[in-house]
Each structure stands twice: as structure tokens, then as C-alpha cells.
């Protein structure tokens, strides 16, 4: 059918079919700002204005839209000045989003902008609650909504004439937020339960280190280098291309949890018009590999095939289809006939290790790693003893033992997994993919595709969020196999349901804690046993569990003599079950560890009647002490002793307790009660946490910097910005070294053909590892610039000859001690065109010998309905020592978004399966993530320390926000009503049962 509709004032005649969504209709016409995030209207990334009304285009058909006027972000505004063409510039909303840091991955940004436009067009002076309401239908997994809300408020003020555009970061404003002294005690406040009436500031409080004051670019709230393209809805993401002859891939997923495939008949599917290829295990090479995106050698078992004769979970692959359209491919899946020999499934990890249990991996090609044992369904085993644990228990006055349970949860990046493959003109396979690990994709897929590494090029465009879910070589092999089979470009894009049934998730664990403690609160020994469920495949099985112990069990070493000789034991069994595989998820095992550790510490403190903060600090790791696990375990390499050089934990506690009003609220029974609402009780809780920064001696970052004629620079980084702002902070570090503005840099990441190797975005390593590589390259370029400046200045002969050591770089000039200078533009032209020509360029790389931990104090304030068990989290505060904060806007965005994800881990998110292994959660209706209109107040405080192992003193910030929210909330629930939870999420029924147990 042919229809006519108007998009941004331009008439379009669409050749469509009745089932085509408006989303696909618009994208087919090139409106790539309209994003696919789900198929049910829940995520809202596809929203456009239809006759001025915000409409989810994924659940609105093109046919329905006939005769309407559609508005997309493409028409909102554009970069001011496009060559000789003058434009009206950005819309005030776009400008506010850019300036405020409201854009992280940018995938939901176009929809947010349109929602805000609809609001402001109708209401010039919206309240914050009204802003949150219109944004409620656009889910964001990155920001915690803090900055988008502020951006809309600010834009409305600008449009009313109540504020000036661009006045966010005047020096006065900065002075207000960058505080060198602590806040007044007792300033803590909270919004009413469940509301968000309190305006928040986009800039966090930063207790700055002295070094930060000396820098011009590092430590400043620079606008993100990629914000302009994202706010205009430019085609920056993986799926925003449409090569000629593109085929669409679909995968037939298993409907049974455990079975051998006896027979597959694909003949009917192959005969369907429009189907170009159907592949089964009989068609592709049988190559065993791991999908975990990690450096070589993969620290885990090789147990996966692109297609196998056996299926191991509901959602496992059975067959691949490529067709002329997604609809045809979908129909073809239904025509594939599969005969299974069903096997008993193992759905409970406690059953996996029992004698006689069904063996999930009985394939002969299975390759063990370390202590994995497929014959026992054991993907990994860890046993670490530090000190003499039994002696420590014997010395204790009291032993405290409890069990804890943490759930399987999903990353829920709003951009689903997507990859596009094609053969290039040199017969090299190009894989354009939304990945955190482009170089690992290339290396790990090469044998699977029977191609040498050199014949594969991986391009990582803009990523719409990853959170660890894209630290996986998860699905790129599907379009790659189909391109090899057909010779044509192929796109494979996960549906939201596939994200739930066929992607990765956080490892669920059952944990037993046993702690010896003296009456004075000294911990004498601490033991954790973790039973981790890796699901059907062992991707990240060893390393995630390793981090559970390595970080969470390292924080409390004990006091007195135990500081020098802590007694710590960590044992983990990581077992296979017939559930979707677990994998990497922001925090990487550490959130699983801190729920038990911090709930356990709270219980011990209360048992001993010691103030819970005092008890924690008494036993916590301090500067100058050994990271206890550093001598016992490392990811993939021999362990090496690491001394803690920086630790701002005590200051974090001081700042956090003041911000939340701990001293006024904790133990205050009058505060706990709400007048007129006897069933409600308020509570307050704390958790102290630590993380790591990168993987020592293993993961490498690389960067190259090239000077151009005009004194600008190409900064090519192998690191992957998945929305975190890493391209920006890496640019800031380069700019600081080179003495230029961020606008003088063109930062590009990443392409395995053009950018240096980088391990990718994981392990909280980009700012630290890749940043050091960038600094390394920039220093080399700076040295060449100095030499060239000397050459030019000495050629001019208008002063005494100078030496390169007398040159410093500032404001895009090379300046001699006597004040003579030469501009970078002169240097660029001189070096490339005029004399003794050379390309000023350098490559830097970096591997760290240490993994300096960031530390944080996280606080939660809650209201518990003691009759129903429903918990409302009113406020979250995080005071964090992440070393130097390169960009307070992007860093606070990380913290706000991380706290929000962690909030879901605390009270609502979990993935569960029925008795046949069928997922309960298959969409964003059942798997609820927090929306803008139900958020608690969030507050971020940075306590800077200068980590000496990095040129700019940085440590990690990305993952640590995940660690302490759940235990802080759990401890606050205990404080409120006595419900002593062992399992998260803290659903109403779990809280209610804990309350009844208490009664």
C-alpha cells in the first residue's frame, strides 16, 4: 500500500505494508533519529510527534500516520554555521541538553527532546514534576534523569527569557559548586516520599585536590565532544546505515531448556520467497570459543559454538535466517521444523554439583580453564586463603554467620545489540557493531569465521549504552556467517525480548558469610562462600566471581594486628545451569559481594551495639596497607602486591553523613514516624564500598595523536565510549598536555583498522588506562611541537637561540621563556609544507602494574509501608573518592546513572524462570526499570585524591556506584522497621515476610 505523510514539513510517499510500524517507515526514509529500543512502546526511544502529540512509533503503524504531520528531531535545530551556510543554530532545548551533560549515550535523547518540546510548547513554565511526567515515557539507563530534567527546566527558562543560554558554567556558578571545604553538618534534607520536587544541580560538589586548580582542561565541566551530533539525531549508531542489498537476520531460539537436536528441516523456510539463507549447525564450522570479550588468553572455559547440536537454555540458538526483510525472516523462522530429544534441565544452581546431575557440557571440544570441570557442571572454582582464617575464628569472641541471595538482572541498554556486516572491496569482512570490545571481537571471531584477523575490520560507531552487556562477542557471528553464506550485507538487531532471553545478565549468587569478631568490634577473620550461577555458558564465570571476593572481601581487613595480617577466605563455585548465560554487568561481581558483606557488617555492628559507621571504619582498609587480595589472585595474570596509595573513605563518610543528615536521623525514633501515617516508617542506611581500576599487567590501552595544518589534532583512541563520556575525558587529558582547547581535538573511537589497540571499555579502566595512553602520546607530540617551535623561532632569528626544553604549550601556542611564541597553526603549516617536513604524530600505550581502588560511602533514606512491605527510596547520597575528577559533569552523570541502576537491583529488578526454564521477564513491562517520575533525590559528592600511579591522578568512577546502593537500602529498611533482609530485590513480599519473621 502507498501512503502519504508529512515529515518535518516535507511530503513523503511511502510504499508500505499494513504491518509496518511508523518507526520502520521513518527509518526507511532516512530519519535515523527515531530509535528502536523495544517493540511494545515501553522504552519510548522511538517517540516522535504525530500532529504535535508524542507517539511511540514502534506501536504506531505507518498506515495510521497517513495524513498526519510528523516531527522528528532532525528538524529541531542544527549546528550553528555549516560552512558558508548560516543556520538558526540549535533549539534552546538542544543547547541545554548539550551544556548540562544531559546526553550520555544519546540513544534516548531525540525522544526526550521531543517530549520536552511538546511540554514547553504547551506550558512555558513547567514545574519539575511536570517535566518528569512528560519524560516518564522515555526510559534512560544512563543518566538517572537528573541532568535531562534540569536541561528541560533551563531551556524553558531560556525560552521564557528568564535565563540566558549557556549560563550554566560561568565562573560564578563553578565557584558555587566546587567546594574546597566540607558542607555544614546537618544540611541533609529529603524530598517527600516518592516525589521529586527538589531541584537539583547538574554540577556535583567536588572537594578538589590542589592539583586540579592548576589545570585548564582537566577538572573542568567541558561539553562532551559527541554531544552535538547526538542532540541533532545524526546517524551515529550501528543501525543507522542502510547499505544497498541489505539482508535482515533473525535467529530461531530454542523453546526448550535442555535438549539434543535430533533433526532440523529447513526446507520450507528456504522456499519462502525473500529468504536468502538458512543456516544450522550442519552448515557452519564447529569451532569452540568463548563469547566473553577479554584479553588473550580468555580466562575461562571454551564452551560455545555459533550453532550446536545441543541447546542449553530457552533462547539458545537453533538456526539463522537471512531474508530480504525482517518480516520475511520472522516468517521463515516459523517454518523451520525442529525435533528435540529433551534432557532434564538444571534450573537451580544448588542441583548442578550434585552427584548424578545431568551434564550440561558433554561436548568433546570443551576446553577447560584453571579448575573448571565440565563433568561436574563446574565452570570455575576459586579458593583463596589469606592469613590463617581458622586461627582468626579461634581468636574471635563471636562468630556471625548468615546466608544471602542476589538475583540475576539485566543491563537493559536502551540500544539493543546490533551488528551490520559486509564484504568490502578487498574481500575483508567489515563488522560494524555496538560493542564495548572491538579488538576482542576481531580476535575472537577470526577462528569462528575461519578468517585471519587481518581480513576482519571491526568498526564501533556510537554505542547506545552497554553496561557490560556489550563486553561480549555475543551476536556478531550471526550476520557474519550470513554475509559469508550470501555475499551480501546483513543486519542483525536484537529485539527487546531477545535481550532478555538470549543476551547476558548479572550472575545470581547464593552467598554464605562467616565472620569472627572481638567484643570491641575488631574483625579477626572473614569468610565468604559464593555459589554463582553462570547459566548455560561460562562467559566471565571465573573473573566475575573472582572480583566478588577480590573487591568486596578486601575492604574489611580488621584492626590492630589484623591490619598487617588479615585473615580472609574466599571460596566460589561457579556452576552451569540451563538458564540464559550470565556475563559482564557493570560492577562485575562486586555488587554481588557487597550486598552480603555490607548487610553482614550492619548485623555485626548491631549485634555488638557499636555504631555501624564506626564499626566499618575501624576495620576498613587504609592508606599504606596492602590490598589483601593483590598477593592472592588476579584476573588472568600472576598476582602482584599492591599498596593502597590513596583512600578518601573517611572523608567520603564525613561528607555523605552530613549530606543525608545522618547524625540527626540515625537512631532517632521520632524522625522515623510520619504523623498521621502509622503504617509508614522512615529509615536510614549506609554502605561502604571499594572497586578496582583496570586489570594490572594485562589490559592495555592505546592512542595516537596527529597534528593537522591548522593546529588541530586527530586523537584516535581504541577505547570505546559507550555513553560514559570517555571520548571527552580522554580529549581533556590530551588538551591539557597539548595546551589546547577541546575544540582543537577531533576525537575518534574506534576502528580496528585505524585506531590503536585498546582492550575496550570494561573493568573501570578507560580513564585510567586509556587516559594514560593518551597522555603518553600527547607528551610525545608536545615534544615534537616544541622542537618544531624552536626550529621556527630560531629561523626567525629575532632573539637568542632557544632550546626545546624552554618551550611550554599554552592556548594553542608554543611559548619560549622570553615570551616569543609561535602558533600551532604556524607549526602545523611549517611541519607539513614549509621546511624539514614531518608529520607530527605519536602513538602511546599503557599497561598498569596496579589497580588503585576507588572508595565510596553510600547512603539511603527510605520509607517502608510496614503493613504491605512496599519500600519507597526517598534519597540516595554517594560520596566517592575516584581520584581526580577529569570532568565533573560526565563523572557525576556516571554516578547518578549507576545509582539508579543499582536502585533497581535493590528493590525491583530480577529475572526469574518457571519450572521449564521459561523467562518470566521478556519485556520492559514486566522488567520494570526506573522512570523519570518515580526517582528519589540523588546527590553526588566527589572527594578528590591524587592517585600517584596516573599522570592526572585519576581512579575509576564508572562501576563503584553499583556497589553500595542495595546494602544501604537494605540497612535503611532494617533501620526503619526491623525487617532484616537476606535477599534482594527488596520486593514488598520479601519485606513483609521479614517483618513477620521479626514479629
Amino acid at each position, binding site marked *: 500500500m502507498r501512503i502519504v505523510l508529512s515529515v518535518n514539513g516535507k511530503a513523503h510517499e511511502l510504499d508500505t505494508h*499494513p504491518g509496518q510500524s511508523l518507526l520502520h517507515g521513518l527509518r526507511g526514509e532516512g530519519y535515523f533519529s527515531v530509535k528502536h529500543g523495544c517493540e511494545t512502546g515501553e522504552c*519510548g526511544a522511538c517517540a516522535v510527534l504525530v500532529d504535535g502529540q508524542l507517539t511511540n512509533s514502534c*506501536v*504506531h*503503524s505507518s498506515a*495510521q500516520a497517513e495524513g498526519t504531520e510528523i516531527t522528528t528531531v532532525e528538524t529541531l535545530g542544527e549546528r550553528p554555521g555549516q560552512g558558508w551556510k548560516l543556520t538558526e543554530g540549535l533549539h534552546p532545548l538542544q543547547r541545554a541538553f548539550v551544556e548540562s551533560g544531559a546526553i550520555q549515550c544519546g540513544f534516548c535523547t531525540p525522544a526526550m527532546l521531543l517530549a520536552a518540546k511538546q511540554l514547553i510548547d504547551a506550558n512555558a513554565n513547567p514545574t519539575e514534576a511536570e517535566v518528569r511526567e512528560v519524560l516518564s515515557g522515555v526510559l534512560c539507563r544512563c543518566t538517572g534523569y537528573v541532568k535531562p530534567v534540569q536541561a528541560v527546566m533551563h531551556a524553558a527558562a531560556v525560552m521564557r527569557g528568564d535565563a540566558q543560554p549557556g549560563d550554566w558554567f560561568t565562573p560564578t556558578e563553578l565557584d558555587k559548586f566546587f567546594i574546597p571545604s566540607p558542607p555544614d553538618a546537618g544540611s541533609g534534607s529529603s524530598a517527600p516520599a516518592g516525589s521529586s520536587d527538589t531541584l537539583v544541580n547538574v554540577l556535583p560538589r567536588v572537594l578538589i585536590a590542589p592539583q586540579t586548580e592548576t589545570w585548564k582542561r582537566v577538572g573542568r565541566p567541558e561539553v562532551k565532544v559527541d554531544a552535538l551530533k547526538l542532540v541533532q539525531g545524526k546517524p551515529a549508531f550501528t543501525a543507522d546505515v542502510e547499505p544497498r542489498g541489505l539482508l535482515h537476520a533473525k535467529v530461531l531460539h530454542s523453546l526448550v531448556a535442555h535438549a539434543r537436536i535430533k533433526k532440523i528441516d529447513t526446507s520450507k523456510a528456504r522456499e519462502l520467497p525473500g529468504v536468502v539463507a538458512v543456516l544450522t549447525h550442519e552448515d557452519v564450522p564447529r569451532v569452540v570459543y568463548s563469547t566473553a570479550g577479554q584479553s588473550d588468553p580468555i580466562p575461562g572455559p571454551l564452551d560455545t559454538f555459533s550453532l550446536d547440536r545441543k541447546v542449553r537454555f530457552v533462547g539458545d540458538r537453533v538456526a539463522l535466517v537471512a531474508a530480504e526483510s525482517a518480516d520475511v525472516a520472522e516468517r521463515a523462522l516459523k517454518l523451520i521444523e525442529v525435533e528435540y530429544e529433551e534432557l532434564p534441565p538444571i534450573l537451580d544452581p544448588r542441583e548442578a554439583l550434585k552427584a548424578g546431575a545431568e551434564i550440561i557440557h558433554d561436548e568433546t571440544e570443551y576446553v577447560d580453564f584453571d579448575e573448571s570441570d565440565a563433568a561436574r557442571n563446574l565452570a570455575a572454582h576459586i579458593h583463596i586463603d589469606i592469613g590463617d582464617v581458622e586461627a582468626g575464628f579461634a581468636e574471635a569472641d563471636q562468630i556471625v554467620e548468615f546466608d544471602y541471595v542476589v538475583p540475576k538482572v539485566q543491563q537493559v541498554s536502551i540500544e539493543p545489540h546490533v551488528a551490520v556486516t559486509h564484504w568490502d572491496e578487498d574481500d575483508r569482512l567489515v563488522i560494524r557493531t555496538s560493542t564495548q570490545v572491538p579488538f576482542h571481537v576481531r580476535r575472537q571471531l577470526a577462528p569462528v569465521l575461519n578468517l585471519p584477523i587481518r581480513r576482519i575490520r571491526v568498526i564501533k560507531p556510537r554505542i547506545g549504552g552497554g553496561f557490560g552487556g556489550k563486553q561480549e562477542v555475543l551476536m556478531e557471528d550471526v550476520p557474519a556467517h550470513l554475509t559469508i553464506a550470501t555475499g551480501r550485507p546483513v543486519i542483525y538487531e536484537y529485539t527487546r525480548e531477545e535481550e532478555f532471553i538470549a543476551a547476558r545478565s548479572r550472575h545470581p549468587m547464593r552467598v554464605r558469610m562467616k565472620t569472627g569478631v572481638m567484643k570491641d568490634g575488631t574483625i579477626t577473620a572473614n569468610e565468604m562462600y559464593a555459589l554463582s550461577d553462570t547459566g548455560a555458558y561460562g562467559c566471565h564465570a571465573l573473573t566475575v566471581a573472582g572480583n566478588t571476593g577480590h573487591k568486596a572481601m578486601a575492604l574489611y581487613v580488621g584492626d590492630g594486628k589484623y591490619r598487617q595480617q588479615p585473615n580472609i577466605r574466599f571460596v566460589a563455585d561457579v556452576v552451569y545451569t540451563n538458564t540464559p548465560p550470565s556475563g559482564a554487568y557493570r560492577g562485575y561481581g562486586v555488587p554481588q559481594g557487597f550486598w552480603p558483606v555490607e548487610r553482614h557488617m550492619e548485623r555485626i555492628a548491631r549485634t555488638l551495639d557499636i555504631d555501624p559507621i564506626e564499626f566499618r571504619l575501624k576495620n576498613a582498609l587504609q592508606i599504606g596497607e596492602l590490598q589483601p587480595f593483590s598477593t592472592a589472585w588476579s584476573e588472568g595474570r600472576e598476582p602482584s602486591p599492591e599498596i593502597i596509595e590513596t583512600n578518601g573513605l573517611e572523608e567520603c563518610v564525613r561528607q555523605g553523613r552530613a549530606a543525608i543528615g545522618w547524625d540527626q536521623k540515625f537512631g532517632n525514633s521520632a524522625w522515623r514516624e510520619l504523623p498521621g501515617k502509622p503504617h509508614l516508617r522512615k529509615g536510614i542506611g549506609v554502605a561502604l564500598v571499594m572497586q578496582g581500576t583496570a586489570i594490572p599487567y594485562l589490559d592495555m590501552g592505546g592512542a595516537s595523536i596527529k597534528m593537522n595544518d591548522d593546529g588541530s589534532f586527530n586523537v584516535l583512541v581504541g577505547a570505546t565510549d559507550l555513553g560514559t563520556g570517555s571520548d571527552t575525558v580522554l580529549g581533556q587529558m590530551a588538551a591539557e598536555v597539548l595546551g589546547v582547547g577541546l575544540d582543537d581535538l577531533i576525537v575518534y573511537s574506534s576502528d580496528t583498522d585505524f585506531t590503536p589497540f585498546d582492550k575496550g571499555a570494561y573493568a573501570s579502566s578507560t580513564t585510567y588506562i586509556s587516559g594514560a595512553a593518551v597522555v603518553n602520546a600527547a607528551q610525545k607530540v608536545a615534544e615534537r611541537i616544541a622542537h618544531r617551535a624552536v626550529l621556527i623561532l630560531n629561523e626567525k632569528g629575532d632573539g637568542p637561540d632557544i632550546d626545546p626544553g624552554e618551550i611550554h604549550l599554552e592556548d594553542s601556542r608554543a611559548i619560549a621563556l622570553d615570551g616569543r611564541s609561535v602558533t600551532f597553526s604556524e607549526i602545523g603549516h611549517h611541519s607539513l609544507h614549509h621546511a624539514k617536513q614531518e608529520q607530527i604524530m605519536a602513538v602511546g600505550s599503557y599497561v598498569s602494574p596496579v589497580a588503585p581502588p576507588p572508595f565510596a560511602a553510600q547512603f539511603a533514606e527510605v520509607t517502608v509501608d510496614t503493613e504491605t512491605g512496599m519500600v519507597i527510596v526517598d534519597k540516595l547520597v554517594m560520596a566517592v573518592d575516584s581520584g581526580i575528577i577529569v570532568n565533573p559533569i560526565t563523572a557525576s552523570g556516571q554516578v547518578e546513572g549507576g545509582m539508579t541502576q543499582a536502585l533497581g537491583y535493590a528493590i525491583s529488578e530480577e529475572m526469574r524462570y518457571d519450572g521449564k526454564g521459561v523467562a518470566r521477564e521478556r519485556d520492559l513491562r514486566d522488567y520494570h526499570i526506573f522512570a523519570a517520575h518515580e526517582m528519589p533525590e540523588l546527590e553526588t559528592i566527589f572527594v578528590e585524591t591524587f592517585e600517584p600511579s596516573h599522570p592526572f591522578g585519576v581512579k575509576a568512577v564508572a562501576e563503584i556506584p553499583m556497589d553500595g546502593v542495595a546494602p544501604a537500602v537494605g540497612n535503611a529498611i532494617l533501620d526503619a522497621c526491623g525487617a532484616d533482609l537476606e535477599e534482594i530485590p527488596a520486593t514488598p513480599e520479601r519485606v513483609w515476610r521479614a517483618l513477620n519473621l521479626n514479629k
Partner: protein
Amino acid sequence: MIVEYHRPEKMDEALSLLARKSPITRPLGGGTQLNAPSDEEVAVVDLQSLQLDFIKQKGKQLQLGASLTLQGLFDFKDIPAALADAIRHEATFTLRRVATVAGCLVSADGRSSFAATMLALDAELIFQPNNEDTSYGEFLPLRHDMLAGRLISQVNILTQINLAYEFVARTPADLPIVSVALARWPSGRTRLVVGGFGAAPHLALDGQDASGLVEATANALNEAGDQWASAEYRMAAGEKLVQRALERIEVEPGV
């Protein structure tokens, strides 16, 4: 999957399309349900040109066109506050602007807050052809059969009914695990609906007064266990919610 699309200008045309045996033909309101992926091949009849998006106050009756959006109803100043709460709980801002009153009532499962409140209000459905009327309570268990060849054109609710809506969920905007909608007429007639589970909200009580509410709640929830909550929990929480709803309905005017 949608295989045919029709946008009739007249009701007769719509009804003749809906009367077809093949292909299976369904009315399309906002499309938030029908446009979602489905294995079923259906033809759709888009109602947008039939002028069914009205809202009228006729005496004590509020008449809602079948294609009125939830947002359109939400914005009407004279609806009970609890109905507005339920609409807000039903769908986000974006979905409310497209989802229609009739579409939500037809596709509702037990977790629909809007359906629960409309059932408590004893909403009346008007079908075409012939302006036949049926209560929403009678319609729900037989909805697919009752829609064969017919179209809901209008939904009526009475004003001057006090309404309360209470729920428990994992987060303020999450689907309810257990919910209650309590409506009381000036005559004392009281209807209690429980939800948060099952295929549809469940009418627990329709009585002359509020006596027996707690027992009715327990009866309605004693087999309400599923993957999301146990029956034991739902009974305990439901009892508290009913008490709160009753307190609220006694102190707050409905319309």
C-alpha cells in the same frame, strides 16, 4: 501481524469489515496493543475517522467515546481523583496519549489499574450495531466472543460515585502486585475490585453497603498466588489496602 489496514469513515463500513469471518478483523484504537509483535495474522479497522474520541457529561453520566485517549480522560476535570491516579498508573505520558479507553478495557489483564477502577465504577459498554449495552463486568470474561462482529463505540460511567484506588508495587510506577479499587454510590452500594494478578481484574463484592469487604477481599485473593506473589501475601496486603481505601472513600469526595 497486521495483514490488512482499513480506515473507514462510517460506522456501517467499520461494522461490515468487523463482521468478516476471514481474515480475523479487529478494531484498532491507538494501536499500542495490536501493533506490538504477534503471531496472529489480523486485519485491522482503524477507528480514528469515526469521531469516537469524545467525552461528554450528560446529567450524572460521563460518556466516553471508544477512541478517547487515556490522556483525554485524564485531562477531563471532573473525573474522580482515584480514576486519574489509576490512569497515571496504567501508562506513561507517551502511551496515555495514544492508548484508548476501549482499547485498554478490551486488552486489560489483571494488572490493569484502569480496568480495575472502571470495573469498580460498573462501567457500561455500548456496542454497535444496535446500541446494545453491557456492563464491563459481564463483558470481561467473554470479551473475545462478545466482540465478534461488534464494536464498542462508547463507555459510560456514572459520576457522583466515590472511588478509591490503592496498590502495592515494587516501585511507584511499576505494575501492581496487588491492587484494590473501591467504589461507593450515594445509595451505599459498594463495589470492590481486586487486581494485580490473573487475566482480568476481579470483582470481589457488589453489595448494598460496605459490610463484608475484608472477607470478600480474602475470598477473592485466596487463590491468587502466581510467579509475582503468593496468595498469602496478596490476602494480607489486600486486606490493608481495602481498609485504606475505605478510609479514603469516607473522607474524600469522589466526583
